Structures are given as structure tokens and as C-alpha cells.
């Protein structure tokens, strides 16, 4: 986790909020550093994490996680982390017929209606342990990323339904959190993606949007992060709070600064 981002979001691993849906969004840049941040944040906060990693392999997250101070292998072995490696499982599902329903079952089907097997997997993974002692603080579902599901043949509505079911179970029933990454395709007319992004934006409590600089590539400022706090359940009597920072990604951390205040410029 990045300490500077914790300061901006006004949280620490000890005081993590519960019952929240956080939307990560990237436009014209790579927002995966936010995924690494939240993964290490919730592991350090002693939460049980179910990570649906559809885009990269386990070792990728593990190596970056070690730079940020968490070990995914240890977390997986002791049961704190349930990791669904999309790339590896897709090969298994695609080439061999599975006996039981597999979370990525829709890869084999021509017209998959919904993501129910994936939802069942998440629900099973974040089931509360019944032996009395509360080992972990709260369940967290992390998805990287939802736009890939659109590329794999699911409709935007099916993905929204999946998130809705997960919210009902994880956020409301078990007082946990959900963090999901969606790509913003910008001006390419990807309507399904826009539907998904807009639908999720309305449901989220916190939106972190990483954007590339409108002026193009810069070596010292890698992009701009917009943070938006929302209260979706209440009517907007108070205005949503929003902050904008620019950032530069380094080997083990990300540094944030106000717009135009990059250390390279000052």
C-alpha cells in the first residue's frame, strides 16, 4: 500500500471502513497500481480477501506485493487470500470439460447468460468461518478487471448483475468491501463498457480515477488521480467531495502532489 495514498484517502489499515464499494477507473493510462495498493492494504488490515485476477498471473501480483510489504504466497497458504487466477484457469476450462461448474464456465458457452458460477465462487470463498473465533476482520472482494468480462462475451448487464449480487452478499450481509477496476475506453465507442462504468459509478462510495495527462507523455508526472467520495444511498443533500492530484510511480511507491507542484518543476 502507498502511505501517501492512505493519507489522501484518510484511512489506515487499522481503521478501514466497512460495507463500501470502491470503483477504480483508468483512462488513457494504466491504473493497475491502484489494484496493488488495495490488495496490500487489505491484506495488512487483516481482512479476508478474495481476489479475482483475470488479467495477470499470480506471480506478477506476488512480486509487486513483496515490494509493497505483503507476501501473497504466505497469505494464500494461511487462508487469508483466495486467489482466482483467470489466465491459468481459463486454459483448464477451455480445453477440458470440467466435472463441476467452474467460475469461468462462460468461456466454454456460446451464449452465457450470467456470471452465476463466478458469484457462487466468491460467496463460497468469503464464507464466514464457523469455528467461533473471528480470524479475519471483514471480507473483501477485489476484481481486476471487470472490462475483461465484457471482452469474454458477457454483456454489461450480466456484469452489473454480478456486482449487485456480490454487493448484497459481501457489503450488506457480511459488512465487507468490494474494489473493482474498470477501464474507461474514452472516445472509442465501447457502449457496453460505458454502460458498465456509468452503472458502477452510481453505486460506488468511492471512485478513484487515474487519467493520463491531456498534454501527453511526461517523465516526471505519470498521470492524474481524481478521488470522488459519494453517498449513493442518500439523496445528495450534501455535495460529493472531490480531489485531484498528480502522481509519479516509482519502484516501490507512488508519490502524489498537487497539480503543477511536481518536484521536477519546482
Amino acid at each position, binding site marked *: 500500500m502507498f502511505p501517501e495514498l492512505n493519507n489522501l484517502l484518510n484511512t489506515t489499515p487499522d481503521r478501514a471502513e466497512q460495507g463500501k464499494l470502491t470503483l477504480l477507473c483508468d483512462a488513457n493510462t494504466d491504473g493497475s497500481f491502484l489494484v496493488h495498493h488495495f490488495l496490500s492494504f487489505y491484506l495488512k488490515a487483516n481482512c479476508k480477501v478474495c481476489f479475482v485476477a483475470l488479467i495477470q498471473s499470480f506471480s506478477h501480483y506476488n*512480486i509487486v506485493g513483496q515490494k509493497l510489504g505483503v507476501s501473497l504466497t504466505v497469505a494464500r497458504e494461511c487462508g487469508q487470500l483466495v486467489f482466482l487466477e483467470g489466465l491459468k484457469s481459463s486454459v483448464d476450462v477451455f480445453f477440458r470439460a470440467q466435472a463441476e461448474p467452474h467460475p469461468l464456465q462462460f468461456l466454454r458457452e456460446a451464449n452465457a447468460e450470467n456470471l452465476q458460477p463466478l458469484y457462487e465462487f466468491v460467496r463460497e470463498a468469503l464464507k464466514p468461518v464457523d469455528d467461533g473465533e473471528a480470524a479475519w476482520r471483514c471480507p473483501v472482494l477485489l476484481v481486476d478487471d471487470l472490462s*475483461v468480462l465484457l471482452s469474454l462475451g458477457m454483456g454489461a448487464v450480466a456484469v452489473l448483475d454480478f456486482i449487485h449480487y456480490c454487493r448484497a452478499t459481501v457489503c450488506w450481509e457480511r459488512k465487507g468491501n468490494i474494489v473493482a477496476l474498470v477501464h474507461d475506453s474514452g472516445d472509442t465507442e465501447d457502449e457496453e463498457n460505458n454502460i458498465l462504468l456509468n452503472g458502477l459509478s452510481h453505486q460506488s462510495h468511492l471512485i478513484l480515477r487515474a487519467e493520463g495527462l491531456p498534454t501527453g507523455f511526461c517523465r516526471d508526472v505519470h498521470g492524474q488521480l481524481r478521488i470522488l467520495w459519494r453517498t449513493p444511498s442518500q439523496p445528495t443533500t450534501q455535495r460529493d467531495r472531490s480531489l485531484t492530484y498528480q502522481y509519479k510511480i516509482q519502484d516501490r511507491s507512488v508519490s502524489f502532489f498537487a497539480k503543477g507542484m511536481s518536484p521536477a518543476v519546482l
Partner: protein
Amino acid sequence: MAAAATCGTGAGSTGSMVAAGGKNNVTSFQRRGPRASGSDSSYSRLVSIAGTRPSVRNGQLLVSTGLPALDQLLGGGLAVGTVLLIEEDKYNIYSSLLFKYFLAEGIINGHTLLVASAKEDPADILQELPAPLLDDNVKKDFDEDACNHKTAESNIKMKIAWRYQLLPKMEAGPVSSSRFGHYYDASKKMPQELIEASKWHGFFSPEKSSSTLNIEPCSLTHGYIKLLQFIQNIIYEEGFDGSNPQKKQKNILRIGIQNLGSPLWGDDICCTENGNSHSLTKFLYVLRGLLRTSLSACMITMPTHLIQNKAIISRVTNLSDTVVGLESFIGSERETNPLYKDYHGLIHIRQIPRLNNLIYDVSDVKDLAFKLKKKLFTIEKRVE
């Protein structure tokens, strides 16, 4: 970085270290430098593979794309286990040349090739590969040697004079080369004995139409399903995914897929806007899954300028690791523009992956042009 230090290989030495997988499947993304990680005892077996080297930044295993200038722009080379997508130029002239460089590099390094095409027979593609460029002085001595009888002594002579190692030997055998990335002469063809000595598998889409399918109909087109099964078969049978630990010599599988997405594969995204929008993206996803779990690297050329639905292009870009776009000046008004008179086209590095890292190697120069001189394909910063 610790990984590079423990590898400790100099610039001119062979290959690199890769940690062979222990209990888990072999993934090329395992951290090199067993002393640095120290956690898994099965890392202790180190194997070096010809034609590869570790990345300076994160120890990732890299292979050359066949074009040293492009290797430099991509941060040292193409990472094993990833997909390099080339967006074709309008008449598919320069992208097919890059495709051939990629395959030629595989032959010189002794890698196994898998060539897939729907337009040309892979055997014909291999016949047209460019010849490796030899140093002129060395070539003269080589001709003298060719007059003598090839005996065991000449083999020993070559071993002592390490400079000669990059020459192909006369007897049929893989060329052992200690260099990473070679230059090719586009005007000459690769010697026949090198092609015959190499190991390659061809997939020609029209020929395989009668095979039986054991996959339920999903939204993938016929051609893609067959290609995926073919690739998975080769990976499994030849042990590129580490499933056969008895194989003593590990090797890289270079997969080259030409004109993916064109109507010849049975896909209609280049013909209509409302075509089968998931077939290509699903194919890329499963392909990437296969690559991540095996010692292979893939180059795909795709006619993105023909794809009608722009949303598919952005999805395809997100599903690929490295994306390079070629824009040639042929037939465009830039051909007569005095600004561009020295060049044949522009090259756009659209995406470079961040592998095992938060940061990545990105060159500062974004304005790149290429030109194909008599023998060499060069990429340089465009000068006004």
C-alpha cells in the same frame, strides 16, 4: 537490482538463467536469482536457454524480436510468456517483414517455431526468411574454411575463436549463437540448410478444416478454435509448459500468427461493424493464458486498420501485452512530403507491459520513424 546481480552474466555471454519451476507449473514469470528470493528451495536448478537474456529491470526472461532497434524500444526484448501485437501497415509490407525477422531470429537461436497463417502456407513463409548478416572479414575466412574438409578439428578451431560462433556451420545442426539479436539482410534468403535444421510446426488454416472438434460450440470462430487446440497440443507434447521434467534441454517456442482477425480466419470483424465481437478477444485471452503457463513468446500481426468496430481495437489492445503500430507512407500524401523523405513510415509504440513491476521501461522518444535500406531495417527518431 538483486536479480541482475546474482545472474551476473556479462553482455557477451550465452543466454541467461531461468529458475525451473518446482512444484508449480513452469511460468516464465518466476523470479530469477534464487539467493535473492530464498523462499523456494526448488529454485536451485538453473538452466540457461539459447537466445534469451534476463531483463535488466526485473529479471524477466527476454527473447529478441529479430530487430535489435525494436528490442531496445521495448525495454530489451520481448518477454517470454507475452504477446507482441503488431498493428499492420496498410498494405502489409513492413509488418510481414517484421514477422519474418521474428521467425528468422528463432531459427538462428535454435528455438522451435510455430507458424500460423490463413493466407500462405507456413512452408512458403519459411522459405522467404531473410538471411542473417555476417561480418565481412569473418565471411572471407569462413569461405576458406569451407574448402577444407569439415572434421572435428575445425569444430575445435571454431570454439577457440569465439567470434566465429555466430556463423552457421556447414553441417546440419542448430546455429549456436552467443549474440542476442541479429541483423538480417532482407535482400537474401536464409540458407536452406538452416531452415531444414530447425524445428518448426506449421498451421495453415484452410488445410485443417476437416479435423474433428471436441469443444462445444462457443462464440469462437472455427479457425480460432483449431489454432488454439493446435498450439495447446504442441505446448503440451513438447513439454514447453514444464509438464515433462525429464526433458534435459529447455527451449523457447516462438509462435507467429499472421493476419489474425482477417476474413480468411473466418472472422467477420473486418467486414461488418456488427460482427462477432467476442471471438477475437476470447481467442487472445485463452492464448495469453497458454503463453503465461509455458516458455513461449508470440508475435501476432493484425490488420487493425480494417476493423470496423473501434471498440474491439481498444479491447484487443488491453488484452495484449506489447502493442506496436506501423504506419507506412506508401500511397499516402506523406510520401511526397519533404519532412518524411528519408523514411518509409512511422512506428508507434502503443503499449508496453508492466511485468512484475509498478514501473516499466519507456523510451523518452515518441516520434519514431523507420526506413528499410538495402539490407537493414532501422528505426530512429524522426529528425526535422
